[in-house]
């Protein structure tokens, strides 16, 4: 990170000096022709740019001066006034000051680096409570508040968030200014048993900027990330537009702009990143307690807990993961006698692994237990009327397993206090889908079961297909789409009054999007070739006919404002390249509407 910053600083100094040089010339022209609007405007723009550059590097003084001068010039521009000699003097003075600061920048940066080195070796105060302390997190909060009243608290270990979540038992660490005074303050606190000084060992994560963590409203972070996401998407469109402009000036500014933007995005993303270990670390204890209660022997192995994900992703999958592990222990792993009989090692094994694949994260939970019997699935499906006898043979293994993801589906007859019936996999699928991912299951009788979840690391931006129906544009998340194709209209046939199509030996129901939307259009009915997406929703595959494809893109998802957000058929809204808003479809909800669709006669 430091080397990057050095690059920017050099770049900044170079650019700033160039701008100042240009300003010099502009001011001289202003002196000759005070009312020439283009000169004033160019000078205004330069100060605006300087302000932005200085702000992004944290050079407050340069930022403030530029801001001031930009403001004055803007006024002149607005009111068509001419530049007076006083203003010109002021601007010259401002420019001189900026020049001085630019000189000093080099020195400042060196000093900051040294400052950080010292921060590295500044020790923590370790605070230990008495054994009988009640609510240690609250006690820690009281102490931290007290310290904050007198001194500056630079860092707390574990973080305040973790402490609040109950993450300490009797010890925590504080790094602050004026350790001596703080130690004395602590010595007089009754709940405190011991106070000592500890130095951090090994590689320490220096909080960027030298000062410790701060608490930020999570909503603000969400908005910040959303806006930065939008900026990135629009910036790339700007780039495309400007790539047609030959002017080198635009290209250079755009380059700098993009570099800063990328940095900004990285930082915003990093702020929200938390390691999977926050939840993975709870699993071993959970498995141990649960298996003891059930008198089973179960071990757990975890891989990939270092991987960092967006905190809202972690919050979202936390429950499903625990439930899946619970399922594995309760319903997957057999009791020791059974395992012995099957010649399996007595201790059942659960494996949790997390892997990063391109922009997604893959989490697998597998057990070497009894697996799920396909016949039982078929049996339950028949019982529940989800399947007819005749259809049984036509189903592939994948389709059989898909039944497990249906609401209310469970092959477990027994309900007991500890394990209940097992969490419905449909709930897991819903939650994973809500974060933009997909879930799959593979299982083999007596061998075991593996649940695989694939989720995008960035929640705010999803890939969508743009489709047009009845003149209106909609976005369909790619997670639902298996393929897109153009099919000749004559390939659609009718079976028992419903439209179907035969695709590579697979019979798929055909639905027309405009029909589902309720404004059945005649567009495309008689077209020779139809735009068609093969989608999969909750295990059901079907063909969706739309009027036109309009490509695909990365979309920044914005939530719909109330009361629109209550419409279940749309998960949100996004603004596409030309500024148009475009509703994002929630395909499962559309499935339920399908029943009322005009079947096309």
């Amino acid at each position, binding site marked *: 990170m430091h080397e990057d910053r050095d690059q920017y600083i050099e770049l900044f100094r170079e650019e700033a000096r160039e701008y100042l040089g240009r300003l010099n010339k502009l001011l001289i022209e202003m002196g000759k022709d005070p009312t020439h609007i283009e000169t004033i405007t160019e000078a205004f723009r330069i100060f605006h740019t300087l302000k932005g550059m200085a702000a992004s590097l944290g050079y407050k003084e340069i930022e403030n001066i530029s801001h001031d001068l930009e403001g004055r010039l803007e006024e002149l521009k607005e009111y068509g006034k001419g530049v007076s000699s006083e203003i010109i003097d002021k601007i010259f003075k401002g420019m001189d000051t900026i020049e001085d600061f630019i000189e000093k920048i080099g020195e400042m940066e060196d000093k900051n680096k040294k400052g950080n080195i010292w921060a590295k070796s500044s020790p923590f105060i370790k605070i230990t409570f008495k054994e009988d302390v009640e*609510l240690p*997190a609250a006690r820690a909060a*009281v102490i931290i508040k007290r310290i904050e009243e007198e001194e500056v608290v630079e860092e707390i270990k574990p973080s305040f968030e973790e402490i609040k979540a109950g993450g300490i038992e009797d010890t925590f660490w504080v790094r602050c200014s004026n350790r001596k005074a703080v130690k004395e303050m602590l010595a007089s606190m009754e709940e405190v048993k011991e106070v000592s000084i500890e130095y951090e060992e090994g590689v320490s994560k220096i909080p960027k900027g030298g000062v410790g963590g701060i608490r930020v409203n999570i909503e603000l972070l969400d908005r910040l990330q959303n806006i930065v996401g939008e900026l990135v998407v629009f910036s790339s469109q700007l780039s495309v537009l400007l790539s047609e402009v030959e002017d080198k000036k635009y290209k250079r500014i755009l380059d700098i702009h993009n570099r800063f933007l990328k940095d900004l995005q990285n930082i915003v993303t990093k702020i929200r990143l938390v390691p999977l270990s926050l939840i993975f670390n709870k699993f071993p204890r959970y498995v141990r307690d649960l298996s003891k209660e059930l008198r089973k022997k179960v071990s757990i192995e975890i891989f990939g807990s270092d991987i960092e994900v967006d905190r809202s992703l972690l919050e979202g999958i936390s429950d499903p993961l625990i439930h899946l592990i619970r399922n594995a222990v309760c319903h997957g792993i057999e009791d020791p006698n059974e395992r012995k009989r099957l010649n399996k090692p007595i201790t059942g094994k659960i494996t949790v692994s997390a892997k990063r694949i391109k922009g997604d994260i893959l989490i697998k939970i597998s057990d070497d237990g009894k697996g799920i019997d396909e016949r039982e699935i078929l049996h339950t499906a028949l019982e529940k009327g989800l399947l007819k006898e005749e259809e049984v043979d036509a189903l592939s293994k994948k389709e059989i397993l898909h039944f497990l993801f249906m609401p209310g589906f469970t092959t477990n007859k027994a309900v007991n206090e500890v394990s209940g019936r097992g969490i419905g996999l449909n709930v897991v699928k819903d939650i994973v889908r809500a974060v933009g991912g997909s879930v799959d299951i593979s299982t083999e009788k007596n061998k075991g079961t593996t649940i695989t979840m694939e989720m995008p690391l960035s929640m705010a931006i999803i890939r969508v297909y743009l489709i047009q129906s009845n003149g209106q544009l909609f976005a369909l998340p790619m997670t639902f789409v298996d393929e897109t194709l153009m099919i000749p209209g004559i390939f659609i046939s009718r079976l028992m009054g419903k439209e179907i199509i035969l695709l590579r030996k697979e019979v798929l129901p055909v639905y027309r999007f405009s029909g589902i939307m309720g404004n059945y259009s005649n567009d495309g009915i008689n077209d020779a070739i139809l735009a068609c997406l093969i989608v999969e929703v909750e295990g059901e595959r079907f063909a969706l006919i739309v009027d036109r494809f309009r490509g695909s893109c990365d979309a920044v998802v914005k939530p719909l404002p109330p009361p629109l957000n209550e419409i279940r058929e749309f998960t949100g809204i996004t603004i596409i390249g030309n500024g148009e808003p475009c509703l994002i479809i929630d395909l499962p909800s559309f499935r339920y509407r399908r029943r009322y669709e005009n079947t096309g006669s």
Partner: protein
Amino acid sequence: MAARVLIVDDAIFMRKMLGDILEKGGYEICAEAENGVEAVDKYVECKPDLVTMDIIMPDISGIDALKEIMKKDRDAKIVMVSAMGHQSLVVEAIQAGAKDYVVKPFQPSRVLEAVQRVLRL
């Protein structure tokens, strides 16, 4: 001169118990309130040196009542009263300005220690 305390709790029983402990410890109970709204009124009326505030109450919560009192008096000394399972709420209350806390069921010595600590501030 004995320090004056305002007790806030929706349960008569708790108020009595706390009141007895505090009086035995030499404090004066200047008023009692059974909900957050009353708490603010009584605070303004009797201007106590310290307030004990139950963290879970119907209508407005202990934390909201705390915030209202602190709006009226930035230096208000409020001690939260909580049952065992509400640690994060207590932390929230401290972040909002509570000076200390005691946990139910009470140990009279702990209650008096906490009150002493806070009054010393």
